[in-house]
């Protein structure tokens, strides 16, 4: 039976009120979505099936839409290179002359570096396999800075893989679908990357804010940075390998230290996804966990590391309890951990707030 023929058919409700109720319901749903979102955790589980499906569908659609723009860019490059061939040739010759000096220096340093490595027996990072990908969509807003690359799970890309272009670090993978992966740029508001200043080794966290130049936060040390310093990844935390070029330090208009990203110098259509696993991921975690630990020994409150106090005469009650506990300096016969239960509990001995003065030691705490 149609609604209009029912008993409620003559019910008249103002449209403005029903629209307002619909608006409130929609707002509640939107708030629920926002509260349930776990994007900032940057975990694989937080990247749901819906996002994966949208990425998979967006890849071919955005690829087709981006193609004319890419061809236009290539055409403009071709025409400009045709008209500026002479000046570019002069510039390249000067650059080549400079680079020859750098090449000789580089070869000498490589030779020296290899000899140092063999002397020290240094274990260096293993080579990192890479996957090339083309960017098909680019988001540049203040609340989200991501790119969609056309390589995904089928090429071994996983969440957390760092992404570079030919000049420097671009970001890292935060979502993987079949044939597509979502790259969170260094400029995104949720992006945090451990970096260091190449000149001083000072550590900092590169924090995106939606603008083109991310901030350097938690800078430590006295005068750790100056204008133009090269910023590289520190490798702390194991998310990205150490030493990837990031950018150059600049002082922002707001007085904060920021980074001009090297990756912005070039075209944004091709990237390399580093299939990186740090040493903690490569290690056999199970073997590490099952290893027998040394026995747990608690500190004897009467044996002080301060020295003279340890030689002080003990009260008789403490001497009895001390016999039940083996001395900490003597290692146990077997490496198996001893249960703590058989050891009789020690009586609580109040420790004086200030130790008794001993001869030859000043009372005032002077060292």
């Amino acid at each position: 039976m149609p609604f209009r023929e029912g008993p409620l058919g003559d019910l008249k409700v103002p449209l403005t009120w029903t629209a307002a109720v619909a608006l409130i319901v929609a707002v509640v749903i939107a708030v629920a979505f926002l509260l349930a979102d776990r994007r900032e955790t940057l975990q694989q589980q937080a990247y749901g099936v819906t996002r994966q499906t949208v990425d998979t569908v967006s890849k071919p659609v955005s690829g087709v839409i981006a193609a004319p723009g890419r061809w236009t860019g290539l055409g403009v490059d071709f025409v400009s290179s045709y008209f500026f061939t002479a000046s570019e040739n002069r510039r390249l010759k000067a650059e080549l002359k400079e680079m020859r000096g750098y090449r000789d220096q580089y070869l000498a340093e490589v030779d020296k570096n290899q000899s140092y490595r063999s002397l020290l027996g240094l274990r260096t990072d293993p080579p990192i396999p890479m996957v090339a990908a083309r960017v098909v969509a680019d988001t540049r807003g203040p609340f989200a800075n991501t790119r969609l690359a056309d390589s995904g799970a089928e090429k071994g890309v996983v969440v957390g893989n760092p992404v570079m272009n030919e000049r420097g670090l671009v970001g890292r993978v935060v979502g993987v679908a079949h044939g597509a992966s979502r790259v969170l740029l260094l400029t995104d508001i949720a992006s945090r990357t451990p970096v260091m200043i190449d000149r001083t080794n000072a550590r900092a966290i590169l924090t995106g804010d939606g603008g083109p130049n991310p901030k350097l936060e938690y800078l430590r040390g006295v005068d750790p940075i100056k204008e133009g310093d090269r910023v590289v990844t520190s490798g702390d935390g194991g998310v990205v390998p150490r030493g990837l070029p990031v950018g150059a330090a600049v002082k922002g208009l707001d007085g904060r230290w920021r980074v001009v990203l090297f990756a912005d110098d070039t075209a944004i259509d091709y990237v390399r996804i580093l299939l990186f696993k740090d040493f903690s991921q490569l290690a056999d975690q199970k073997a590490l966990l099952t290893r027998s630990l040394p026995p747990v020994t608690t500190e004897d409150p009467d044996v002080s590391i301060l020295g003279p106090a340890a030689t002080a005469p003990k009260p008789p009650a403490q001497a009895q309890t001390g016999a039940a506990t083996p001395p900490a300096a003597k290692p146990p016969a077997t490496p198996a951990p001893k249960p703590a239960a058989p050891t009789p509990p020690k009586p609580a001995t109040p420790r004086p707030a200030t130790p008794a003065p001993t001869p030859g030691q000043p009372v005032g705490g002077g060292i």
Partner: protein
Amino acid sequence: MGGARPLHPARWLGVPALFCVLATIAFAAPIRIYGLQLPEPVFAMVPAFAWALIRPSILAPFALLLLGLFLDTFWGGPNGLWGLSLLVAYATALAGRNMMTGQSRPIMWAWFTGVTAVAMAGGFLFSMLDSLAMPSLLAVFWQFLVTALLFPFAHRLIDRFEDADVRFR
């Protein structure tokens, strides 16, 4: 008799929403010529403003919610951020509907700019609460500016459908 027919939602809700989706995908193209990238306006602000002025509707808020969820998923932002921001803008326009209708084009443009500012302020606030970090004010202002330039599309949409349903004349 044709004017007495109720306006079909697919015409004034479906088609503009589809155009917004297509325009958003087109402007996400990774193009950089002479170091300059395409701007990223929020095309969904056009229907968020125009739908409130055309007529109060039950379907429009849900269409805006879907558009916002699409923006969040496609742009890789937090889910619900743009849905909520667009609904705040829609609510603002709906509340000021009686003041806006019948105004001249420059005044309407000023209203559109104001409603866009409300949406961007909402996005700024929700993003700050969600990520516990402050977005760049310059980046927000840049997106606000390019979105405010979309008013001619909103004006066209309002002109097209404002008198389409005789019950709301």
